[in-house]
């Protein structure tokens, strides 16, 4: 048994033993869980995939004369930002696209540029065009603003993603007889391909399936900088069915994360275009798991072949909200490049970069080993299955 405080003392003295969520698998196989739990202090995880419910808020500073964007409009490189706040606070969503983007009018739309790309360009230090309109008040008389802005000049620039880091995700296939364009990529007809999106054995919430160490306030690697878990993510759903090892068999927990955009790096926040679907942001996240006891260690040593997920038809079942799975498959099978669905061999593709997830876990490990990253104590736990917290569908009611 160790405490986070004791692990932090070791980090400060340069004596910490940190390994990645991949490396721990071999260590446990060689030494067993008891010895490994004594020797290892921290296991680092990583994930790098498209995460649409991401965005950033900014305070752009007051112009002379003053303008009140609240109730007006604001565009950054033609991408609309939300400005229903005070005078100069705005929030830009990763999935926002310019008003004049043709969208899916010429199907499938290409979605070349949007909020995700803009966030990446800002982080890369590029100047961005800001164009805003307002209605004007006695205290904020200005009605129009057009200027270049740069990340370094903004007062606050904070990445605040309301749902990231899904604990497990569906495998998407298409049973219909026409090609479809989805957020899981292009799906060829009649089981032409199967797309999945998870770092599997490196993915943060799959290595702490009951949220025993990851909670509100956990300090993380976010977009190449430092961030924190702010809350459970939207659609957090801890109550889904789990295997004996605790790993959910379908999409379950999620994280809302926050961090200073100014410290982040463009290689870990990448603007992403999904053909026929829209734009998003591919986010790099790494979460350290403190090895407080043998049970926590056992979870971190879970392997791809022990993590199962569901195969879902995106031709009919997903869009029509028809529940059901075409079968269950593990990540080792998915990573092999082909799986069998309804008796047919189907090639697989991952939307989430395993090699980048590995780099993130290695990077976070080196921060911890070098004494640059201390662990934080969570201030509150994430809701667990027993809490009854669930993810409900919308119940539509007629407006009278």
């Amino acid at each position, binding site marked *: 048994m160790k405490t986070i405080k004791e692990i932090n003392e070791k980090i400060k003295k340069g004596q910490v033993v940190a390994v990645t969520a991949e490396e721990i698998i071999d260590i446990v196989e060689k030494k067993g869980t008891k010895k490994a739990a004594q020797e290892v202090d921290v296991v680092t995880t990583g994930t790098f995939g498209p995460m649409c419910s991401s965005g950033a808020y900014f305070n752009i500073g007051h112009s002379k004369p003053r303008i009140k964007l609240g109730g007006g409009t604001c565009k950054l490189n033609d991408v609309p930002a939300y400005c229903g706040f005070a005078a100069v606070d705005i929030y830009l969503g990763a999935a926002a696209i310019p008003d004049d983007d043709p969208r899916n009018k010429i199907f499938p739309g290409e979605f070349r540029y949007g909020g995700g790309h803009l966030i990446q360009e800002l982080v890369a230090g590029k100047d961005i065009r800001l164009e805003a309109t307002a209605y004007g008040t006695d205290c904020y008389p200005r009605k129009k603003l057009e200027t270049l802005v740069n990340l370094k000049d903004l007062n606050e620039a904070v990445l605040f993603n309301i749902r990231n880091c899904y604990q497990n995700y569906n495998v998407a296939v298409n049973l219909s007889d026409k090609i479809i364009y989805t957020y899981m990529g292009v799906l060829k007809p009649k089981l032409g391909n199967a797309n999945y999106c998870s770092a599997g054995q490196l993915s943060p919430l799959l290595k702490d399936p009951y949220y025993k160490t990851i909670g509100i306030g956990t300090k993380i690697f976010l977009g190449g900088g430092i961030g924190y878990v702010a809350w459970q993510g939207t659609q957090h759903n801890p109550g889904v069915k789990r295997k004996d090892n605790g790993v959910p068999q379908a999409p379950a927990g999620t994280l809302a994360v926050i961090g200073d955009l100014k410290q982040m790096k463009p290689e870990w926040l990448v603007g992403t275009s999904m053909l026929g679907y829209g734009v998003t942001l591919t986010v790099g996240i790494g979460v350290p798991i403190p090895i407080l006891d043998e049970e926590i260690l056992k979870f971190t040593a879970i392997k791809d072949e022990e993590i199962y997920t569901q195969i879902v038809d995106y031709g009919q079942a997903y869009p029509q909200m028809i529940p059901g799975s075409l079968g269950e498959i593990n990540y080792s099978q998915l990573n092999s490049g082909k799986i069998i669905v309804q008796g047919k061999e189907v090639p697989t593709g*991952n939307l989430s970069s395993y090699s980048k997830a590995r780099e993130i876990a290695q990077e976070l490990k080196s921060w911890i080993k070098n004494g640059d990253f201390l662990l934080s104590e969570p201030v509150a736990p994430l809701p667990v299955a027993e809490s009854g917290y669930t993810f409900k569908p919308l119940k539509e009611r007629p407006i009278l």
Partner: protein
Amino acid sequence: MISKRIVLHFPHRLVDQPIVCKLVKDYDLQFNILKAYVTPQEEGLMVLELSGEEENFNKGIQYLTSCGVRIQPLSQDVIRNEVTCTDCGVCVPICPTGALVVDPITRKVHFYDNKCIACELCVKVCPTRAMEVHF
């Protein structure tokens, strides 16, 4: 026997003339057309897999060049931007010729341009648009 994938660029003045058929008739070569179109600037573009005896192959290429056709090896046409690619692998099942493959050890995506037939399916499917066409 040799077999190569090449890109032929036909200038505007040659677009309406029979040229490729002569490769069979006069030079005893075989070809498989992988792609052919006329661009809005009325330049003709054809991607061929061309095979035959080496001597005939070289003569055939000489003939095309003498007609004014510009020839480019296919491997230069579809290029992966190594900086933009995140090695996710969603392109892999889309590629019809197995030119895009995930390395089982490094888990990075390899692009074997000698297998590429420039169908361009990967270009729009790539979430970071890392596959670029340079015809």
